[in-house]
């Protein structure tokens, strides 16, 4: 169906804390988006491949292991190398403020930390990707 926002929810790295990723996946699906959840332990390469294959408009990266400053820039780099730099990347997890600022600097659309309402993410994606729906 045309006009549906497609989002890849990705769990890079080794940590298995997938409660957040699953809640977001379900909430975005309930909000009418098409959600592809990669499952656990994905390499940045695998995540970017999935995003391109699925023609995703956005990637939601969930990391709680502290490896975000290594893994997220790697994902951005690979997206750009594949000519998919326009895919919106958002990050969720235990991300310290300084790191969140650095990630936004690197081109990440938004960084969500524990306790932020899921509704904010839905609103953000709907606004940022309004062109998809129109």
């Amino acid at each position, binding site marked *: 169906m045309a006009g549906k926002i497609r989002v890849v929810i990705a769990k890079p790295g*080794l940590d298995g804390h997938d409660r957040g990723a699953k809640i977001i996946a379900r909430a975005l699906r309930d909000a009418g988006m098409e959600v592809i959840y990669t499952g656990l*332990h994905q390499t940045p390469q695998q995540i970017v491949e999935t995003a391109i294959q699925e023609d995703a408009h956005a990637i939601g990266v969930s990391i709680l292991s502290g*490896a975000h400053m290594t893994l997220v820039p790697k994902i951005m780099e690979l997206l750009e190398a594949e000519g998919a730099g326009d895919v919106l990347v958002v990050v969720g997890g235990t991300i310290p403020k300084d790191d969140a600022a650095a990630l936004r600097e690197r081109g990440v659309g938004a960084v969500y930390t524990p306790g932020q309402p899921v509704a904010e993410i839905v609103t953000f994606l709907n606004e940022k990707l309004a062109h998809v729906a129109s």
Partner: protein
Amino acid sequence: MAIADRQSSWTPRHRADSDTPANEAEAAWQGALARTPDRDELFTTMSAAEVPRMSTPESAGTDYAADLGYPGQFPFTRGVYPSMYRGKPWTQRQFAGFGTAAETNERFHYLLAHGQHGLSVAFDMPSLMGYDSDDEHALGEVGREGVAVDSVLDMERLFEGVPLDEVSTSMTINGPAPIILAYYAVMAENRGIPLAKLSGTIQTDILKEYIAQKEWLFPPDPSMRLVTDMVEFCTNEMPRWHPISISGYHIREAGSTAAQELAFTLANGFAYVEHAIARGLDVDAFAPRLSFFFNAHIDFFEEIAKLRAARRIWATVMRDKYGAKDPRSLLCRFHCQTAGVSLTWQQPLVNVARTAVEAMAAILGGCQSLHTNSYDEAIALPTEAAVQIALRTQQVIEEETGVTSSIDPLGGSYFVEEMTNRIEADAYDYFRQMDELGGTVEAVKQNFQMREIADASFRWQQEVEAGQRRIVGVNAYQVQDEPEVAILKIDPNLEAEQAARTRQARADRDEAVAQKALADLTEACRGDANLMYPLLDCARATCTEGEIVRAMREVFGSWTETPVF
């Protein structure tokens, strides 16, 4: 011996229904209530369990001798030991481990000097997942949320100067638990300390990995074999060691209800018991060294009820279903940790209050040891100052509040007894559902527990977002400018240094001996001998964790889950 008959009925206890008034006074009270209606609130626990408006002797329906009894006596509702905290307070055990083995070793000495009684090791993600620090999968994760242990040499650095025969050590690792236990044992062997003197616990609870934490190395069946190998090995060689800590903590953190935490954890415990019995072990030879690990969450009375019910269910099923005769086999002894998920990133100092309430629930629930979270853990790894406040919180409860002076002080509270009965009945309902699916391991393969948890976790999140659940600082009493919190940063150079040490460890060893140990291990995996012995040989030969896992995967393969959300 055949696995105990799965069809045998789980004995449900009574469940009081108090819809009809018990007497005239209650009828009059109910009439008066109609004129003072409840506030418009959810009067359920955070697990969506109904909370009685007010419990009464009738709704509690307690038969003192059968349901409560005395501490240290069946069914142990009031506590596992006769004197509880009057005899000995719980062990204050703070989980620690970050950066290198040497840094963690420093933290150990700091904690021992500050009066902590037991040590606890957190491993980093690559160690938990069976990868060496120089593996490509370890990129960016070495020493991040725990310590990197790649070989017996790292274990030796980790415990340098720690008297192994005097402390009790808890190691939180599951998939690679047999490898890590082999490293610990060989370290003791190198220091001339007999294995029989080692005291501690290793988590090893692989079923809750499939259910919640997702750190497995192999498919469920070979994983269950490895757990059983460890139980058998410890029974014969390390009688003071607890080979499994059956853990509900992660199940709860993954978003389960209290009843799911209780039911899935105890069911996992029963599955390990059945496998060990099937191996030919006498239940009383190993059951006394099974211990548990529960979450202490923020819904105060529900948590206390859960912990009391856990003791009663474990004792009842161990006695009546598995034929345990040694009273120690009936004891559900447990560690508690306050709920990581209850911590908020907003107004983080408020977490000190949350953690204190949760710690109180654990203690009133009769825990044997306790970890209190640091207030900054929703943001990053804890700083030393935050760790100290967390430990001091336990010390305030122990030294100042007086709650340790009377055993099970909430026992006999109509409300606590009614909640205990209710959550117990909910657990038996889950046991029956899993029996119908063919047992716990089968239910895991069918994603049953995962689906139940995902549903509960989503419901909670929706209630929070709808404002039906208020969390201070998150959706109530917010402030605009969040204060900055000092956070612990891990030196990024640490990863390269650790990877170099591991390459050096391989370069320094006798390669022929190492390769032979690995080849022997692979061969042993094809047979059915206890794998702990070839693992000890691998540890002695300085084989690394990643090499050992690869040697076993040749036979066992790996496991990919089908995610449910």
